């Protein structure tokens, strides 16, 4: 098992995708919106669901389920769009990520975070900063910048063709 790179105490927003609980650093989260009508962008990759209007700005929306290879699901009352800020090629980019449900903001101590196991997970370890423990639940802390690097988008696009 690798050592986690996280050494400082930080706050995380936790959310659910299917059965699993994920977390992203709260400093990268702008706001959480209720699910709303998404304008589709024709002929874009499936996980890029479209764009929404966030107070006058046009914000792209990503379906994290599809991004992570899960089945697409119909929105429920719990479905939320998490508006996050990421660094894309050195520029700050705002985008919305669809999650099945958003739980809470919690503090996780560095000593409660383990490094990523290199085998035995369904998730590509590149995208994961560490795994936190909260009670008897494991929380996967995502490296959100890495998930949305443009290169990664290109790879997925070519996978689809």
């Amino acid at each position: 098992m690798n050592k986690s790179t996280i050494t400082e105490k930080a706050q995380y927003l936790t959310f659910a995708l299917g059965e699993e609980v994920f977390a992203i650093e709260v400093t990268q989260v702008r706001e959480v919106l209720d699910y709303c009508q998404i304008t589709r962008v024709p002929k874009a990759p499936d996980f890029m669901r479209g764009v929404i209007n966030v107070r006058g700005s046009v914000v792209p929306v990503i379906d994290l389920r599809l991004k992570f290879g899960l089945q697409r699901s119909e929105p429920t009352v719990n479905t939320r769009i998490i508006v996050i800020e990421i660094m894309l090629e050195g520029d700050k980019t705002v985008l919305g990520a669809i999650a099945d449900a958003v739980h809470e903001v919690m503090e996780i101590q560095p000593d409660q975070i383990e490094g990523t196991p290199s085998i035995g997970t369904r998730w590509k370890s590149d995208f994961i900063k560490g795994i936190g423990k909260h009670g008897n639940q494991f929380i996967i802390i995502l490296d959100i910048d890495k998930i949305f690097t443009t290169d990664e988008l290109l790879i997925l696009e070519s996978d689809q063709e």
Partner: protein
Amino acid sequence: MDNHRQVYREEAYELLTELETGLLELEKNPHNLEIIGQVFRALHTIKGSGAMFGFDEIASFTHEVETVFDLVRDGKIEVSKDLINLSLRAKDQIKHMLDIADTEEPIDQETLNDIISSYRSYISDTPQKEAPRDLTDHVVASNQIEVTYRIRFRPKPYIFQNGTNPILLLDQLRELGECKIIAQPDAIPLIHAINPESCYVYWDIILTTKKTLDDIKDIFIFVEDCADIKIDMIDLENDLDEDESGYRLGEILVQRGDLTPSDVQHALNSQKRIGEILVEADLVNPAAVESALAEQEFIKTSRKKRRDGVVQSFVRVPSDRLDTLVNLVGELVSVQARLSRKASLKIDAELLSISEEVERLTAELRNNIMNIRMLPIGTTFNMFKRVVRDLSTELGKEAILLTEGGQTELDKTVIDQLNDPLIHIIRNCIDHGIEPPEIREKKGKSKQGIIRLCAEHSGASVLISISDDGAGINKEAVRQKAVEKGLIAQDTPISDEDMIKFIFAPGFSTSKSVSDVSGRGVGMDVVKRSIEALHGSVTVHSQPEKGTKITLKLPLTLAIIDGLLVKIGDENFVLPLAIVEECIELSQRQASAARIQNIIDFRGEIVPYINLRGLFFSSQESFQNNESAQPTLIVIVESKNGRIGLEVDHVIGQYQTVIKSLGKMYQTIPWISGATILGDGSIALIIDVNQLLKIAEYQ
């Protein structure tokens, strides 16, 4: 400090442009003192402020150039072609030094010294008038404001006795600035009483100058003892809030002490013109009135002149702040559209009137903001004069550039991106279009070729045309090249118009030799692409032996476009109105034929057809077969491959589209060039038709 340096640089770049324009003008009119003055001032300011902000190398280099122009100004050196060439080189050198000023790059001392020594040779040929001015005596002159002074110069009668000629003093005053001198003869006695060795005349002088009071006093320094000198400041340059007429006659006379206020009041009570009354009443003599009238007139005109000058004063604002402002206004427009929509649904007169008020203000605000971003294209045009001059010399041709419509305004972003395409086109004009002088003479044309650069408004677009009176495009050569490149077969019948379009093909050049200038075949192809990136278009007309005319059609601004709002499936889309030609309806029969063949018959012309719903959403939604009720709507658009028919579900109408970028995430989706927010808060995507065709072809 860095901030100041940045400001200096920006200013210096502007001054350099001014300098270049001046030099090129000077080449045409070598004796025009005004232009020489303009060149000198530009140099002087570059030097002065350069020294102030620590650009010492620039300052000392410019100093050398300035010294020579000082002599030119004094008529000691003639303006020659060599001097202009050298000075243009020097200008480039200064620009280069500015470019690299805050980088590590060392200055090329060799070039520098070369230019300096060339300049010094000018100086050594002429008698040195005075030691070159000190570097630190600088800037101020040009920054100072103009002040108008009233001077009363009243020599004592015995002034002639110490050898002073008052006329010479007056001449010196004239050199200080704009000056009006009125002689006051009222003290002259009758002829039998005149002592020819005495001075009886005195003078009222009104002087508008940038010099200080001390400079004026200096002129009178030797006559202080034998003359009464009164100098008043009467009109400060920046004091513009008073009305144009300036002071009234009575006020002036009172101020001068020629009259008391009660005299004026008394005179005003009668109905005649005040000047006449005063003279009649023998309160002042006619000359005093004349002098005061002159002062009134003088101040009036100089104020007016200044006010005209004030109109052209500028505030320097970083362009990203403007962009932010434009974005905010764009959002305001969207919010306002929502408000109007909501208000129109409610039956509330007050709300409606508020919303209309907001609508009016928003529209005004938007127009104003857009105007701020508009710049006259003239500055860019002037830059090309140099290009034409240098290139024609290099290629052994004679050509001049005539410009028209330099005041035409365009969005700054558009202007910035126009530079390179225009340079390409102008290079082509000189390289391919204009013939060498001897050939031109044989053809019966004047030796000097003319390149015309015109800009004009045409609706929401600006047309920029570049025409030359050269040989025109050699259609046979183009044809051969096209065949060679495999673009057409040897015997393909093709119209001249289509033939010319080949010059836009990548890697296309008919020039036999590759020169430094053109012939690499990257030119026109790049031009076309960059103009299209600006949502513009390029057309070419060419007549053999008459010349070629290239017209660029550009939108006024990139931030807002006129769009046609259409509905495809559940989503709204915007087609740029500039490319929309027509909307037509197809009957059922025509429509089903069109679906099978993928072409439609548009007034006898065969036009390719794309079903946008099928193209965009085919993976999720099959063709809906509800064709029965509705006629099929086709929007005919102009693309780079000619006309294309696009099937849409509904045409909603014209829509002022505030363009928003989709950001980095969607840069892999080029057929959507942006998005806009509609009145109800929903989003419409803007379609880039040319890109769309690429994926349509691919399928």
